[in-house]
């Protein structure tokens, strides 16, 4: 009779609202060049979404704008043609062919960034200024307040990162904070069971710590690589959590 509000687009709008503080501080830092990149990704992502809407009747999602912003912030510095190929690959094969945001396994931002990182290994990785790390705190607060962010993932990842860094915040760079809040904690690609979410967050923290210990590279590459591997592991973690839940119930209820 009456319908509630927590549709996919409401969640996407909350994500967009949470992106705003980070977007302001990033545009402040990057200026016109950064804005141009952002507009370029937004237009390309919008184009692909529109094509899928017309040819496959797949409703577009505002979450694409969040992914577009993440790509503009994190993608390695390549030429415009390579950049366009990477963004198209990420959106089409990372998300749209699976049925759009909410049905895909990977975030299009992670796919794009890893595609560009693997495809053009000599390209420079961006260096995120420290204020972006601080700006993710209000963003995470907004998402947590609306219950959109899976808090178990966030806490699991933070605990492992802080413990692995010898109880200081050295591992928690701006890049890791940004990737954790906007790519790893995306509820559409993260694990969905409570235990699965703890494991998912902890695995992200562990992989980040591992890569940081053995890999001399930019924090952005470390964080995004960890995000890619951990989102591929999410269905497995969920499966494990459900199997454990079923075993406990068989023991308890016969």
């Amino acid at each position, binding site marked *: 009779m009456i319908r509630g509000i*927590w*549709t996919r687009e409401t969640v996407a709008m909350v994500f967009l609202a949470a992106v705003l503080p980070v977007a302001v501080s990033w545009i402040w830092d990057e200026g016109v060049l950064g804005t141009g990149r952002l507009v370029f990704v937004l237009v390309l992502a919008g184009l692909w979404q529109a094509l899928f809407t017309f040819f496959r009747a797949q409703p577009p999602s505002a979450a694409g704008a969040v992914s577009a912003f993440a790509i503009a912030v994190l993608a390695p510095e390549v030429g415009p043609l390579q950049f366009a190929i990477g963004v198209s690959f990420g959106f089409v094969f990372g998300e749209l062919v699976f049925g759009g945001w909410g049905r895909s396994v990977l975030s299009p931002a992670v796919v794009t960034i890893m595609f560009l990182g693997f495809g053009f290994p000599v390209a420079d990785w961006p260096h995120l200024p420290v204020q972006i790390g601080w700006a993710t705190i209000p963003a995470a607060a907004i998402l947590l307040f609306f219950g959109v962010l899976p808090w178990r993932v966030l806490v699991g990842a933070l605990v492992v990162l802080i413990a692995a860094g010898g109880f200081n915040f050295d591992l928690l760079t701006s890049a890791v904070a940004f990737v954790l809040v906007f790519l790893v904690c995306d509820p*559409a690609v993260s694990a*969905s*069971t409570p235990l699965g979410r703890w494991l998912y967050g902890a695995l992200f923290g562990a992989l980040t710590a591992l890569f940081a210990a053995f890999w001399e590279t930019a924090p952005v590459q470390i964080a995004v690589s960890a995000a890619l591997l951990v989102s591929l592991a999410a269905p497995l973690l969920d499966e494990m959590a*459900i199997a454990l839940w*079923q075993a406990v*119930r068989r023991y308890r209820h016969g």
Partner: protein
Amino acid sequence: MPEKILTSEAGVSLAPWMEFRVEPLAEVGSLVAQGAPILRDRRRPECIVTAPIAGRVAELETGAGRRLTSLIVQAEGPCDRHQYDTRLALGELEGGSGTTALRQLLQSSGLWMRLRARPFGKVPEASTVPAAIVVMAVDTRPLAPDPRHAIGEENTARLNLGLRALSSLCDGPIFFCQDRGPDIPDAHGRLKIVRIGELHPEGLAGLQIHRLFPARLSRQVWDISMEDVVAIGQLLSEGRLPETQVVSVAGPGLREARLVRCPPGADLRELCYAFMSPGPRIILSGSVLDGRESRWLGFHDRQVTVLERREPTPRHWLDAALRRASRPEPVIATAAVEQALGGAMPGMALLRALSVGDDEAAVDLDVLSLVEEDLALVDYVTAASPRFSDLLRAALNRIEANA
């Protein structure tokens, strides 16, 4: 105390899932006493519907497959109440010798229809023995009446008698789910009192069955509301069915919310009209989450919700065409969805299994303990289309057909 209202008309409105095929036991135009049998299911003679009020059967119509379309009883003459012979059933209960007469009495008085068996949420077969029975003395649906209003000095004794009758029907535990206040019934051997919270969906029988004693294909769990157990007690001690039940009449379309005692199947217009605020209104039998628009109080409903009737605003033709053509949007796993399922099971996995029609996975996630009303809150929160409660019913029907 709730105000007692005897409406001048009452009808019978059965939920579609009950699959009731009508065989009339009373003629149109004849006088019936309150509580006298008037309808029987042609395929399952243990299912009997009794007259909600004393009066004349004014209308009895059946539709395709002899499903009930409308049955109206108009109050007329003296308030006769049908008297049932309970000596055999009482003797059985005292002597502890079987349950044949007790089952017979419950079936002939229509109280058997108040039981709901899980899996599949149908009225149980005449001779099944459940593995457990859950009695719900909590209703957490929005604007639902507190079932404690149904309990008074005299009803406590009836409740205890009804619970004894229930425990003779099954060999397993009887779970009595109540709020955190003082104990309502006297606990005995197999009667376990379970205290549950006040927030929806805690008060749904499906969630409690899932937690306490999951239903399986091989073992049934029945659920019944406390007021119906009181009715069983009253039937056993006095031989008559209760005249009224506690119903809350509330909602944003009313000037004031009321708590009344009215007959089952009461005329909802009569209950609501005098208290409605001006403007177009819609009267639902049941809660805002799982209610249906109806003229009569539904068979299992204990609340009436009055809402403002909103005509859908016309969309631009392009927008409408795009929406009609598009696929439904997926559900995102937010805290709201988790809370709507009570946090008791891997909720998103269950919703995904239902939406792709994976019955095997759904059974592994304990879908057999649930019925439509248990997913009504998820449907509300996520505004999902198609509704998960419809998907659940389809999955249950498939599982039942294959079993």
